[in-house]
């Protein structure tokens, strides 16, 4: 190695080390801090144990959001007559979230003869991965209510948010030339307060989908966790601050925690249940949001663009020297 090449080499190494220093594992520099819960955060507490699977919520959701119900009968199995109870034009067909279903009730078996309902929808994460991932800031989180919504004027349709969302919530209009990204936005356009709030909660007959400030919902959730099977509890219906409630007996012991209180930094839609959460399709995840891990890394590498600039200066000098020789 002659002298010039050694000097060029040193410059590259200096810059390269800076980049490499950033590429060391997360625990070496840590994820960035988790976002704070917005002051006025609103949300939903879904209690799987009192859900009766009537799907009034998803019907109301469609109505509120101006979506046509899909009442085509399911196709009969090959060679079979139309199965009974599937008369076209009556039942809304819904299997999973889709551009036509912002929420859906699914039934999961617990593997031991029992079953549990689960209400799928956007969880309105406190530290949303979709928002962190979106290259053009199409997802935003309302600083007051914490509602996570999508901006049609910004979105380029890259679908990186789909990769990022831990709950696989966003849905794409795969069969359209001009597709949208769709998901629940907590009925934000019609929200006024106690009179008009999330349609799914407003229509829920049992209070399984309960609307309200996140803090109040958490408090209610903690109360329920303390209840023993057979105990009586006055379950609020609709809005936790509203006037309606109904007294019911706790059927089965609750799982030991409120899903979404801490998971991935917390969510504003939270779940209670007696069937293990993983069986309800909720992933077993830690408390650190993935957005914090990936942003922590990205910030270390690109903080003030210092590392890239140092590297660039070194490379510029090296390239200049070798081309002008």
């Amino acid at each position, binding site marked *: 190695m002659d002298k010039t090449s050694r000097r*060029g080499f040193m410059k590259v190494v200096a810059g390269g080390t800076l980049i490499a220093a950033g590429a060391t594992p997360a625990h070496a520099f840590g994820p960035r801090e988790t976002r704070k819960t917005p002051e006025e955060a609103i949300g939903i507490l879904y209690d799987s144990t009192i859900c009766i699977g009537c799907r009034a919520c998803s019907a109301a959701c469609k109505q509120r959001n101006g979506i046509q119900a899909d009442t085509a009968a399911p196709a009969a199995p090959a060679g079979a007559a139309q199965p009974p109870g599937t008369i076209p034009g009556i039942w809304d067909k819904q299997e999973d979230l889709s551009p036509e279903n912002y929420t859906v009730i699914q039934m999961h078996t617990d593997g031991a003869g029992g079953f549990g309902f689960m209400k799928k929808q956007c969880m309105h994460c406190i530290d949303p991965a979709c928002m962190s*991932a979106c*290259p053009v800031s199409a997802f935003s989180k309302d600083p007051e209510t914490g509602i996570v919504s999508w901006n049609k004027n910004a979105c380029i*349709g890259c679908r990186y948010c789909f*990769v990022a969302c831990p709950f696989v919530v*966003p849905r794409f209009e795969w069969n359209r030339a001009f*597709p949208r990204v769709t998901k629940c936005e907590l009925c934000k356009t019609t929200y006024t307060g106690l009179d008009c709030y999330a349609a799914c909660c407003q229509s829920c007959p049992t209070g399984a989908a309960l609307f309200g400030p996140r803090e109040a919902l958490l408090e209610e959730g903690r109360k329920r966790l303390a209840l023993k099977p057979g105990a009586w509890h006055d379950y609020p219906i609709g809005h936790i601050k509203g006037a309606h409630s109904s007294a019911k007996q706790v059927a089965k012991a609750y799982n030991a925690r409120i899903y979404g209180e801490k998971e991935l930094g917390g969510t504003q839609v939270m779940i209670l249940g007696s069937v293990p959460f993983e069986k309800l399709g909720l992933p077993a995840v830690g408390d650190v949001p993935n957005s914090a891990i990936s942003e922590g890394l990205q910030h270390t590498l690109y903080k003030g663009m210092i590392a890239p600039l140092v590297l660039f200066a070194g490379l510029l000098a090296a390239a200049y020297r070798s081309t002008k020789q």
Partner: protein
Amino acid sequence: MSHHDAFEPMGGKILTRPFVAAAVIFMLAAVLILKRFFVGLGPVSGMNDGFALGIWIAYDVVVGTAIGCGGYAVALLVYAFNRGHYHPLVRSALLTGAFGYTLAGTSVMIDLGRYWNTYNLFLPWRMNFNSALFEIAMCVMAYTAVLWVEFSPAIIEKFKPAWAAVVNRWMFVFIALGMLLPTMHQSSLGSLMIISGHKLSPLWQTTWLPAFFLITCIAMGYAMVVFESLWSSVGFGRPLETPMLARLAGIIPWLLGIYLAGRFVELASRGALGLAFQFNLCGVMFWIENILYIIPIVVLASAQRRGEPRTLFLSALSALFAGSIYRFNVYLVGLYPGFGWRYFPSSSELLITFGLISFEIMGYLFIVKQLSVLPKVEHA
């Protein structure tokens, strides 16, 4: 260093049989691409909400640009490490890179669901610097342009020799950018999947992804130069440049050896290595990936074996497959979005990718025949 006398055009007929075959595939793909803009992405692809990124990203962008890293990897040697004797390899490597990156950009434009909104990437108030994808988008666009500028002397020499002085005077800036930008976006292509969290198998999910992607893309770059050079030597009936390629290939075991050591230490430190021994799809793919990495490390470590064109060619190919399968595993195979989501590319989706690759091959063949790209044969 503008030794335009160091390169020569291959000449010869353009409409050869491989060229025509490539043209036919490209035409079929073009029809499907057109269809995509009328009926949406669903009918021409196997993508879904669980696997919202398919082979157009995993292959065309992630693998395609890693394979296109030849220009970057050789530039690092020639300019940053002052190994001028590798200069004859630069041009063809840049050309492959330029095509690889252009192909990636084209795929992205087909893949973007709401392409008419792409200008938002340039609106300062919309830019999301937290997003790995934003960094990649900007860097890849810039680097594609840089690659063509770096390659431009080959065009200018032929059509506007008078401009050569100006271009060459400022070339060092582009050369430096050509080393900086891939360092940034190739590592970010690894960072991209960190946010998928639990959905990516612990066999691949790690904050080391950016470092792993960076080091393997450089190794793939050298492997591609070796592969391409031997391939075109045979194809154009030129003497093999084995000694130079053998020396270049000698770097690969170092890079991949360091990579593999880091990879296994990292896996073991997280206690995830056990997953490799559950012989399910992920476990099997993990071993295929890593055995393909081990082959070039072992084979190319010996100078004598490196001197053998056949061995050299096959081990370079193994390194290329290893890096490609690694990327497929991170982007598709290791991804488990939950209940029932499955993905396999549809035939239209595959055909579109093949069509774009065909276009790349046509472009490459056309340009090396017309312009001075491949190293001049010394008739001594």
